[in-house]
């Protein structure tokens, strides 16, 4: 473990303590109700553009702890969102997870930006950003998730396996936003898709020009060409000024800095989709284009690295989502999966979006194992680790292997958190 990582641990520990996850806070008599409204010396004037309180200091963290980025060295590709202190279902854009395959956001002048749609179409057209904004817009709640999120095998598996892993380490490669833009089907309708076309190839404008093949059926179904996120323009690291949104599917599909859509009759087998994202099976075959993310849930409080400070009442709360549709049910177990109780689902419950759940619970000081499992409106239930290993034809030891090249995506096993007698919470996947 690098010293950077240790520092980060220290920081997270302090952060968890600061967050005041404690029954004590409720009964505390020392709370200051009224503070003087004089700004502290040297504070920025926040009337024109706001900032969060100086007491709020959650940040994204690199998946491999190889950050900050040092030019000329190996670097982090993925940056995880701090789910442990997430509130509700919207991820603030500055904390939304990032994966850009090592490419930095291009500096795009929105007045110069457009997206070309060509290939098997009646009319090749370039739509400027301004023109896209003139079209009827829609806003939809959707999660994004890296296919490697919460995966135990693979290069990012190690930090998620250790007992000290936080929910940011285990599940931080998902986030949820209100996305605003134009249905891709509308733009495809404008260019006139020709008979025989069956796939699109979407391309970004960054160095490396990330490319992804997507079935036309999905493109015409619910994909968005989005320019807005949570009421503002996309952030540069989220694809400013334009990105593709492919709801419920692996993050790799959601091409950022979108500049081109090529209508074709077969998948184009770009580098990422054909060589990096397939999941290898033990028989030597690989699954590729897995696309849809399965039903998944995780308890965010109490979760790994947090500390219960006293016996008594807590709400167990977390997030559930599914690429197949809306979350219909979340169950919570406090006895390691022997018995389950239905959690309350908070509104809004949108298809292919994070859904917040909660269950009232009283901790009596015993060691307990907290778990959650969700069911979506297709009837798909989040699997146990045992069910998942059976599906993959491996045993659980496979996931205990050191970081390997067997990068198995779409890992959605139930996540257990162990609450020890001293109130500490730790990762208990293994």
């Amino acid at each position, binding site marked *: 473990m690098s010293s950077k990582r240790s520092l980060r641990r220290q920081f997270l520990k302090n952060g968890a303590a600061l967050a005041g996850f404690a029954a004590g806070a409720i009964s505390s008599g020392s709370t200051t109700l009224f503070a003087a409204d004089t700004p502290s010396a040297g504070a920025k004037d926040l009337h024109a553009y706001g900032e969060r309180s100086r007491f709020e200091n959650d940040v994204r963290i690199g998946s491999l702890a190889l950050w900050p980025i040092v030019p*000329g060295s*190996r670097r982090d590709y993925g940056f995880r969102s701090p789910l442990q202190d997430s509130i509700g279902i919207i991820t603030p854009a500055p904390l939304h997870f990032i994966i850009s395959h090592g490419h930095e956001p291009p500096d795009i002048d929105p007045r110069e930006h*457009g997206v*070309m749609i*060509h290939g098997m179409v009646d*009319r*090749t*057209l*370039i*739509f400027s950003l301004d*023109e896209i904004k003139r*079209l009827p817009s829609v806003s939809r709640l959707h999660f994004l998730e890296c296919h490697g999120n919460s995966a135990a095998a693979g290069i990012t598996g190690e930090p998620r396996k250790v007992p000290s892993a936080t929910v940011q380490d285990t599940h931080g490669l998902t986030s949820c936003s209100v996305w605003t833009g134009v249905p891709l089907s509308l733009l495809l309708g*404008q260019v006139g898709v020709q008979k025989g076309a069956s*796939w699109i*190839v979407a*391309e970004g404008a960054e*160095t*490396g*020009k990330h*490319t992804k093949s997507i*079935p036309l059926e*999905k493109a015409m179904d619910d994909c968005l060409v989005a320019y807005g996120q949570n009421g503002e323009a996309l952030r540069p690291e989220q694809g400013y000024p334009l990105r593709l949104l492919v709801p419920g599917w692996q993050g790799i599909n959601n091409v950022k800095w979108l500049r*081109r859509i*090529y209508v*074709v*009759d*077969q998948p*184009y*087998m*770009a*580098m990422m989709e*054909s*060589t990096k994202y*397939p999941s*290898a099976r*033990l*028989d*030597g*075959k*690989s*699954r*590729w*284009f*897995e*696309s*849809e*993310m*399965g039903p998944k849930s995780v308890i965010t409080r109490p979760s790994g690295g947090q500390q219960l400070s006293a016996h008594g009442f807590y709400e167990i709360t977390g997030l559930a989502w599914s690429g*197949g549709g809306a979350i219909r049910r979340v169950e919570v177990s406090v006895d390691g999966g022997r018995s389950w109780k239905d959690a309350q689902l908070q509104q809004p419950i949108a298809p292919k979006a994070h859904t917040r759940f909660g269950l009232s619970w009283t901790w009596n000081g015993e060691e307990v194992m907290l778990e959650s499992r969700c069911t979506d409106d297709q009837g*798909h*239930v989040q699997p146990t680790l045992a069910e998942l290993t059976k*599906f993959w034809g*491996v045993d659980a030891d496979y996931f205990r*292997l050191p970081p*390997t*090249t*067997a*990068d198995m995506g*779409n890992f*959605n096993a139930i996540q257990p958190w162990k609450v020890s007698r001293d109130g500490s919470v730790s990762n208990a996947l293994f």
Partner: protein
Amino acid sequence: MRYSSFLPALAVFGLAACSAAFAQAPGYSNLGRTPSKEEIQAWNQSIGPQGKELPPGSGTAKQGEEIFASKCAACHGANGEGSQLAPRLVGGRGPLNTPTPSRTLANYWPFATTIWDYINRAMPPKQEGSLSGSDIYALTAFILYRNDIIPEGQVLDAASLPKVKMPNRDGFIPDRLEDIHSLRARGCNAGHCP
């Protein structure tokens, strides 16, 4: 009787005329600009497995060796063995039916056209687009030759590159993705496609 049937018709007509002013499809059919042929060509960088977008030009491993030394070796190693900065391009062959399969270019990549496409769009970092079509054919030939996938003297061009069969072409399921657009039809369940 006549009037009573005429009046509603007029009302409907009036409504239709009114909404036509806001009608959607015709209303925004003027949006979007038609690019020139040259513009389309300049923007289109996608090379599919059939290679129909591949440009003219050609190259051999011998020509590629020199370009590799000056443009690629600094990160990928003098013999394509890889480094902390860039993946291995030569070697790494071995069985895939293990918990630690080697997912190198030679051992794993299903299509040779992907090599051309990726060099063209992404390499070398910060100098993307600096290599000519022939340079890229030559580099592709060099990498494939060093991996014993093509003979040293083979000329790669738009016709020959798509015909190169990569060792792991048949290692993916489902084999013919283009036939199966629907996830449900692929038998996906709980996020996994068997």
